[in-house]
């Protein structure tokens, strides 16, 4: 970990006085495979997250399309029940765990140091570790699917169906161990965001000047730190029941199936807020760029982000309304689930006001950010309906809920993400995405998505249950299912257009300068793409929109970007106080390291050992992790963790 004081006070100078190539040498990653395995650069890690998450999005999408072919007509037998069950379970697992959170981690990883005026995240090696474990655990879970032993009891994996007597194969073991593994990635990533937010902001960036994206990711990270242990524990207890012979969920020994549901949903509900709040932050930061004004209601929006998550800890039972719980409990959770719409309404009105009180410029990014407000509202009201217990008793476990979850996930995660791609692709690559193709991309996805999922509300109201591999003709669901299938293929085409746009623009896109959108926040003050050190001198921030200050004229203070602290004695960035952002320490940053990668290999071996009952391999894995940790944490002079640091 980056360590304690260097006694010197850094000099302040103009950025032109700081030679680029020296900083470059200090910060650059080695070329080739060596650099690829050892890089700790947040931009590289962020891009890997984004690419990997998109790959999983496409995989999950194909799984969905296969299911939609099966469900296009009644009584079809293209898939066996087992195949269908593995498809829908893997689709859920992929989208919710391997796409929705990692894509936001990827954007946040890439952007945070840039928008916070820093050189890297607080824990660069931990950052690399969170990616490697994400990749390893994703591959681990898909290995099961690849050999026909994919998860087959839904992403929610209820017992007793997930217990050994009813599920003797390896399917659930792949899922359970894989999820515990993935949980490590999520947790260390979350810790990184929390400490970065608190300690590595640019001087002058007080807590009320940070972009809303950071509020969203911070809130999600605090939540993850607190709730991921719940689901990891649930999977651990289940795995132990299945493979060790314990009785946590064993009804014959007094165990209860509902304990699983409580542990799962105490995690699951905060999780679904964690996978949308950062994306909402992207809208809150992106919409103002295209409306040519700051966000309406920064403080209410920041507070509502936190409030949504806090309320989100208190609603999990709304997934269990039909399980026979006492009315008093049901009423409380129903009320909380209705009230939680209030902070969401704050965001919706803030965005709408920003459009009305600004001068909107139509771009593809703007279309995605603006349309998500409507999709958010549709998803929100269907959630509001199911928050009412008696209504939920009709609607739960029907396609009405499937419609709801896709409106909130695609509307509040995917649409902002695609908007974010159009907004930040120029910064990441130095090229613009094609706007004409972008319009085709937008309209195809928008129409395809609504064609697929709007009728689904009706399908659910007409009683079609979830998770059925086929349905009989006499129920009258044929037409609606066919429309949904057609819409889903149109949506897939839209996503394909996005991929094409990205791939062609990488080669032939119009060159983008540092600030093609004339936006106001710090990331646009760096070259496109940014150099490995981000900023030549550490900026000093005086407002929320440093690059718009002279036009907004809201105070006499000005941010300093071309003049600032010179930190060039090795890899260094500025540490600051949590609330006021006053610089108080020089943080020494680590060099590239193989430890994160090697630790992941050892951990993977350990989990494989558990999966295959090769206990010796599990022990080898643990030993390997211990060695990697010892090497990683060994105090280094260069990081100021030991005495005898050379003075300036």
């Amino acid at each position, binding site marked *: 970990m980056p*360590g304690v004081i260097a006694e010197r006070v850094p000099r302040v100078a103009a950025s032109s006085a700081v030679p680029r190539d020296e900083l470059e040498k200090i910060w650059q990653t080695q070329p080739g495979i060596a650099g690829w395995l050892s890089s700790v650069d947040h931009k590289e890690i962020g891009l890997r997250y984004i690419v990997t998450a998109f790959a999983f999005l496409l995989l999950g999408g194909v799984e969905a399309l296969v299911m939609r072919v099966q469900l296009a007509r009644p009584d079809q037998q293209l898939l066996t029940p087992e195949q269908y069950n593995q498809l829908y379970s893997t689709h859920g697992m992929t989208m919710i765990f391997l796409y929705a959170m990692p894509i936001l981690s990827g954007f946040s990883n890439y952007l945070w140091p840039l928008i916070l005026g820093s050189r890297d995240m607080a824990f660069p090696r931990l950052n690399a570790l969170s990616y490697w474990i994400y990749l390893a655990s994703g591959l681990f879970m898909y290995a099961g699917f690849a050999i026909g032993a994919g998860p087959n009891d839904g992403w929610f994996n209820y017992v007793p169906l997930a217990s050994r007597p009813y599920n003797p194969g390896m399917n659930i073991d792949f899922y359970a161990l894989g999820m515990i593994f993935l949980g490590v990635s999520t947790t260390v990533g979350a810790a990184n965001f*929390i400490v970065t937010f608190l300690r590595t902001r640019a001087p002058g960036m007080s807590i009320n000047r940070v972009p809303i994206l950071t509020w969203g990711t911070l809130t999600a990270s605090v939540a993850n730190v607190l709730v991921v*242990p719940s689901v990891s524990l649930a999977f651990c207890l289940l795995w132990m029941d299945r493979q060790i012979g314990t009785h*946590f969920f064993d009804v014959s020994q007094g165990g209860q199936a509902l304990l699983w549901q409580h542990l799962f949903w105490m995690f699951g509900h905060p999780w679904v807020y964690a996978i949308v709040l950062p994306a909402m932050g992207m809208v809150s930061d992106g919409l103002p760029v295209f409306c040519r004004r700051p966000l309406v209601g920064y403080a209410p929006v920041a507070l509502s982000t936190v409030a949504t998550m806090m309320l989100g800890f208190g609603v999990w039972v709304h997934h269990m309304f039909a399980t026979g719980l006492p009315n008093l409990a049901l009423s409380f959770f129903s009320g909380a689930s209705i009230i939680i719409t209030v902070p969401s309404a704050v965001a919706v009105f803030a965005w709408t006001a920003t459009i009305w009180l600004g001068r909107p410029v139509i771009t593809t990014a703007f279309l995605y950010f603006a349309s998500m407000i409507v999709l958010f509202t549709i998803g929100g009201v269907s959630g509001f309906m199911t928050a009412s217990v008696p209504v939920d008793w009709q609607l739960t476990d029907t396609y009405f809920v499937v419609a709801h979850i896709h409106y909130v996930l695609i509307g509040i995660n995917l649409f902002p993400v695609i908007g974010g791609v159009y907004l930040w692709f120029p910064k990441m690559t130095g090229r613009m995405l094609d706007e004409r193709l972008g319009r085709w991309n937008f309209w195809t996805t928008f129409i395809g998505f609504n064609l697929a999922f709007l009728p689904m509300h009706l399908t659910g109201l007409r009683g079609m249950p979830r998770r059925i591999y086929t349905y009989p003709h006499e129920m009258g669901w044929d037409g609606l299912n066919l429309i949904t299938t057609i819409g889903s293929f149109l949506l897939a085409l839209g996503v394909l257009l996005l991929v094409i746009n990205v791939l062609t623009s990488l080669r032939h896109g119009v060159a983008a300068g540092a600030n093609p959108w004339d936006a106001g926040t710090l990331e646009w003050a760096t070259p496109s793409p940014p150099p490995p050190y981000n900023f030549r001198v550490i900026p000093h921030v005086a407002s929320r929109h440093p690059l718009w200050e002279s036009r907004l004229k809201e105070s006499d203070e000005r941010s300093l970007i071309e003049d600032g602290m010179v930190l060039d004695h090795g890899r260094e960035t500025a540490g600051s106080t949590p609330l006021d952002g006053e610089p108080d320490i020089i943080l020494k940053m680590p060099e590239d390291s193989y430890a994160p990668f090697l630790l992941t290999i050892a951990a993977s071996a350990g989990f494989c050992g558990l999966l295959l009952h090769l206990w010796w391999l599990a022990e080898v894995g643990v030993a390997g992790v211990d060695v990697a940790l010892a090497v990683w944490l060994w105090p280094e002079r260069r990081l100021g*963790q030991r005495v005898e640091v050379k003075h300036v």
Partner: protein
Amino acid sequence: MRRIGVGWWGLLCVVLTEGALFGYLLFSYLYYAVQLDPAWIPIRHPSLRLAVPNTIVLLLSSVCVWWGERGTREGRRGRQLLGIGVGFLLGLAFIGIQLQEWHDKPFSLRSSLYGSLFYTITGFHMAHVVAGVIALAMVFLWSVLGYFDRMRNAPVLIAATYWHFVDAVWLAVFTTLYLTPYLG
């Protein structure tokens, strides 16, 4: 004034998440305890013969580690080594005593729902104790090698904080598993 970089904050996140883990473990235990017939616990009143002294051992070890860490901040190497060292030994003693306690129990991990919960909860705690003991040993080694002085000593504070956390968790585990059955 001592200035702290980012490592200690990272440890706070570890404390939060692992603390939450134990929260969920104890929730699982209490979920059953309030719903099941009291006979679900094989021994109505769990034996305190070894558990109470062991709790004192762990508390003492925290005191030693705290004292050693304070010595570090004051630049007093002797105290640093003595405090960490004795704390480490007491930690080892805790492990030994608890292993003996486990050996003496008439139920096992697989014999009943209660057994599964008891051994899993105390087992998770034991794993954290082992990690803490290793951390104390590493810090002791690094101290012997002369890595730390009154300014540079973050690993000492971090290991000590973790150790106090492990102690606090034990108090919660001890109260839930050993004391609540006595409340009828």
